[in-house]
């Protein structure tokens, strides 16, 4: 990495909160046990769609220790929070428990509160409902799915169809063609920390502890739901045990919990069970991609058409943004993108790590591989030959794009030059088929409004209160390193408060903009602090004596920052708890993070088990703000990619709707034994055109393209192309002979 000039002191780059986390000292939202705590559970619907004809909660209410059963029979005074992608705050617009409608299997029908978790659980199982059922659709292939063109339904510029040049004609006249359809199943985040909250009232003030990426949306959404002033809502979320997009908005249980806590005059806690999680909140929607690619006789890609549909709920339109990156991966002049909603009877899907980019890259980068083979070209060299420095959509340059360097460096580390082009031509000593695959990924860069408040103490410590959330990505470490490097102090002299609406607006932390946005604000506040302390703009600072020299106990500095091109209006929007994104197209340039993945698979010749002994990934995320947590981010992304390509799918029985495999046993995320060597490297060139410190995003891009690299490697190993994820034993077995 290339540090900024003022970075003089080498700092400790280990995770600053590692000890708290591994010793259990870090308290997550549902680790709290306030006095008088009552426990809540949910009863859920068993039908795919319809209405509750009769609800009997008497047996539940009679369980000893039960304090309260809330359902639509209680006419709860609660409004919809709106959908986070529809101008609102909620994980979906549909707030259960308000009426007798059932929109999907697993929808909450009652909230039970009791003295103990055991009593609440027993009682929830005793809630009895009689339903009137209606036909429903639960998969992309089910009858009754309603298809809507995205631009016709939501005429917003960023959701428009992409038409660059004339892709249909260019495709028609191309020398080489690929036309293939790729399927991505529904997937579920399954963070270790379950979704849950501890909710209480302090007078008229509602206090919510919930692991979240978006304390601001919870605050403002609850204010809207309950008809109270947002100033009377405090949301506190110092740690989130993995979010991955599932915790990016107001969940459906918090409003009802607030009502229960008010009625009982006691704090109430709910931890949504792992089994219920699969229906309680958002998930990655199933999507289907038809990709048409054309190349000229020299192997130059000249046309791309990406048509995609994905599932959404009946009540919300979760937008599609798949073509944003597929139109930028290469210098393809003529590009056409078409995106279609497929409405069906599920809870609303949402953002799951690399929400669009992972499925899009699987489809597109598989197709590119197919085209490389059709052109008899090495897939690495083919990609390099189609590189670009200009954003083909906007016509502006990329502020930074070191993708070719990622590819070259990765190839060298991987030993790509020893690859034989012909599929099924490489074997390991044990007879396994060896496959080597490559794919690239991209993720749009964004900066959101942010804020930081620094307090320098006479004891030499710096307190940092910021707009930003810690969800395992290591934001505390990133901030501590920046402050420590800047002032020449130790990382443990920095105290950091994140995810707390009492200290700052808490904008959604997601989409890999967290680091860039929060660090931008901290960086600006550091400049202000140095000024306040009368220090130079760079060089180490003896904080204690500088503070004492001012004659005060402490010195404070504040900064509020915006994304490039954003205005005070955007800042105001963000203060209301609404997502306020800039990018990836900025005035004069576009910004994306880039990555190249190289994957080796081994396919057992007989039983066709696929193993992934090694992966090499090289990322261009601008400056590497925190090397340890950055490498962890990429390793985690690769593991997700391996899971997504070989293991994970929400299983849907169309007769019942919902998801059948709702446990960690049946929804097979990878285990350690599935993961081999993960070799991660960074280009580390700061992107100072995009950002004052030079950082772009990393968490999301790290997963993008892994699945394609795996699928391409499986093709190289076996000679059979798999276009549906996950690729399982039976798929590979079907292509082999005894």
């Amino acid at each position, binding site marked *: 990495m290339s540090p900024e000039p003022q970075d003089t002191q080498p700092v400790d780059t280990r995770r600053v909160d590692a000890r708290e986390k591994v010793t259990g000292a870090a308290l997550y939202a549902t680790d709290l046990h306030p006095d008088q705590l009552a426990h809540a559970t949910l009863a859920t619907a*068993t*039908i795919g769609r319809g209405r509750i004809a009769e609800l009997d909660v008497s047996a539940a209410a009679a369980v000893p220790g039960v304090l309260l059963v809330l359902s639509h029979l209680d006419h709860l005074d609660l409004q919809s929070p709106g959908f986070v992608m529809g101008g609102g705050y909620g994980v979906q617009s549909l707030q259960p428990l308000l009426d007798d409608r059932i929109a999907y*299997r697993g929808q909450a029908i009652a909230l039970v509160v009791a003295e103990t978790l*055991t009593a609440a*659980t*027993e009682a929830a*199982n005793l809630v009895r409902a009689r339903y009137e059922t209606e036909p429903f659709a639960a998969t992309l292939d089910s009858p009754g799915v309603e298809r809507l063109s995205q631009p016709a339904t939501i005429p917003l510029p960023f959701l428009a169809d992409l038409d660059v040049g004339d892709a249909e004609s260019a495709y028609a006249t191309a020398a080489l063609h690929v036309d293939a359809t790729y399927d991505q199943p529904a997937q579920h985040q399954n963070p270790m920390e379950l979704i849950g909250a501890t909710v209480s009232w302090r007078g008229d003030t509602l206090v919510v502890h919930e692991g979240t990426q978006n304390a601001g949306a919870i605050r403002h959404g609850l204010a809207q739901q309950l008809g109270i002033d947002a100033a009377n809502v405090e949301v506190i979320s110092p740690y989130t045990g993995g979010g991955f997009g599932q915790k990016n908005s107001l969940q459906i249980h918090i409003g009802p919990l607030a009502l229960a806590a008010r009625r009982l005059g006691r704090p109430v806690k709910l931890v949504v069970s792992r089994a219920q999680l699969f229906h309680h909140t958002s998930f990655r929607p199933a999507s289907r991609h038809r990709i048409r690619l054309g190349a000229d006789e020299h192997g130059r890609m000249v046309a791309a058409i990406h048509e995609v549909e994905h599932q959404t709920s009946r009540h919300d339109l979760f937008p599609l943004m798949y073509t944003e990156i597929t139109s930028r991966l290469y210098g393809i002049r003529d590009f056409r993108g078409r995106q279609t909603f497929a409405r069906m009877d599920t809870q609303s899907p949402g953002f799951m790590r690399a929400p669009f980019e992972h499925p899009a890259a699987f489809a597109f980068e598989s197709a590119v591989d197919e085209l490389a083979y059709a052109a008899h070209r090495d897939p690495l060299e083919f990609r390099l030959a189609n590189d670009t420095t200009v954003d083909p959509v906007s016509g502006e340059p990329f502020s930074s794009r070191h993708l070719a360097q990622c590819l070259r460096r990765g190839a060298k580390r991987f030993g790509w030059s020893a690859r034989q082009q012909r599929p099924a031509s490489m074997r390991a000593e044990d007879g396994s088929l060896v496959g080597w695959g490559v794919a690239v990924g991209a993720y749009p860069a964004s900066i959101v409004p942010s804020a930081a408040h620094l307090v320098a103490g006479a004891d030499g410590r710096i307190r940092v209160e910021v707009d930003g959330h810690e969800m395992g990505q290591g934001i505390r470490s990133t901030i501590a390193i920046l402050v420590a490097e800047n002032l020449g102090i130790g990382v443990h002299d920095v105290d950091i408060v994140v995810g707390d609406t009492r200290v700052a607006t808490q904008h959604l932390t997601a989409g890999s903009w967290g680091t860039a946005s929060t660090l931008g604000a901290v960086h600006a506040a550091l400049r202000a602090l140095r000024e306040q302390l009368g220090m130079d703009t760079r060089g180490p600072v003896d904080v204690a004596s500088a503070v004492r020299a001012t004659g005060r106990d402490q010195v404070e500095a504040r900064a509020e920052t915006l994304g490039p091109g954003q205005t005070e209006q955007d800042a105001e929007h963000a203060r209301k708890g609404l997502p306020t994104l800039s990018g990836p197209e900025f005035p004069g340039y576009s910004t994306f993070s880039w990555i190249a993945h190289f994957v080796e698979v081994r396919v057992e010749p*007989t*039983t*066709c*088990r696929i*193993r992934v002994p090694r992966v090499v990934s090289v990322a261009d995320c601008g400056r590497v703000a925190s090397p340890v947590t950055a490498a962890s981010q990429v390793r985690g992304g690769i593991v997700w990619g391996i899971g997504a390509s070989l*293991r994970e799918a929400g*299983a849907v*029985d169309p*007769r*019942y709707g919902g998801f*059948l*495999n*709702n*446990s960690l*046993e*049946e929804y*097979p995320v*990878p*285990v*350690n*034994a*599935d993961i081999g060597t993960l070799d991660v490297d960074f280009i580390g060139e700061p992107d100072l055109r995009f950002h004052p410190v030079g950082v772009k995003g990393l968490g999301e891009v790290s997963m993008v393209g892994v699945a394609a690299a795996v699928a391409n490697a499986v093709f190289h190993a076996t000679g059979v192309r798999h276009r549906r994820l996950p690729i*399982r*034993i*039976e798929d590979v*077995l*079907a292509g082999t002979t*005894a």
Partner: protein
Amino acid sequence: MRPFAYTKVETLAEAVDALAAAGPQARLLAGGTTLYDLMKLEIETPSAVVDVHRVADLAGFDTSGDRELVFGAGARMADVAEDGRLRRDYPALSESLWRAASQQLRNMATLGGNLLQRTRCPYFRGGEPFACNKRSPGSGCAAQEGLDRSNALFGGSEACIAVYPGDWATALVAFDAEVDVHGPGGARSLPLARLHREPGDTPQHEHNLAPGEIITRVRVPVTPAGRGSAYLKIRDRESYAFALVSAAVALTLDGDGRVDECRIAVGGVATRPWRVPAAEQALRGNAITEASARAAGEAAFTGARPGRANAFKIELGTRTVADAVRLAGSRAVG
């Protein structure tokens, strides 16, 4: 979870008495890794639970005998899996244990509980709204027209096609293990092959223990085929997953390298531990070659009745048996 009476006992006699006193709705509790799970799902709703995990009469195991290996029903999977003698002389038995579940589960789970673990059929565990004759007799079987990737190809009935999921019993059935039980009527033994029932019309009845009977020990006759044994398990991930297909093979070779003693069972595909005599017969008397191993695999899967999404297990299982035969053969030689 429903309220239940909990009794902890220290001796086998106390356990038998407590179980008899608690009546037919009582359940024995060993490691709890199946029972507690199902109680939380309200699929098991016992009125009383008798905890035997401290009963010394059930603990321990002895792999040093010259006539038989003896395993206490209360021995932990992890302890037995790690036994040096078992690993050397009966690798299939050890492998069937350490390839099961996860280390944490194996630390808790007992051999007796393992034998009586219940199916992982998702419609059984899913509770309402799924029709399931095993959970709720007479309600139907959602698996038959549903997602049946994990369901049985052998031993199913109109009423139920749930797989018996245990690895240990699959290996044991190949070794002609005997099960000792103790109940109100005293002690008796039965072959492991007769411990589990096929579903027939009554899939809710899964085993042949009389009410109040407790498994005390599992005994495995000593055999030289133990050395030449292997348990191969193919699953969706490399740990913490049940078998898509598994094969237990144990054999000896004569002076000419021909298979003499031969024992083969398959797992993940049948409603009870599934010995495959036809495969044994196909292999016996033959040298182990690609062709003879494959023939054994094909014999093992003759008569399979696949459903909608599990037909691939015929070919996968055939190859798994063939691989296990070759691995067992290589161990038998050297």
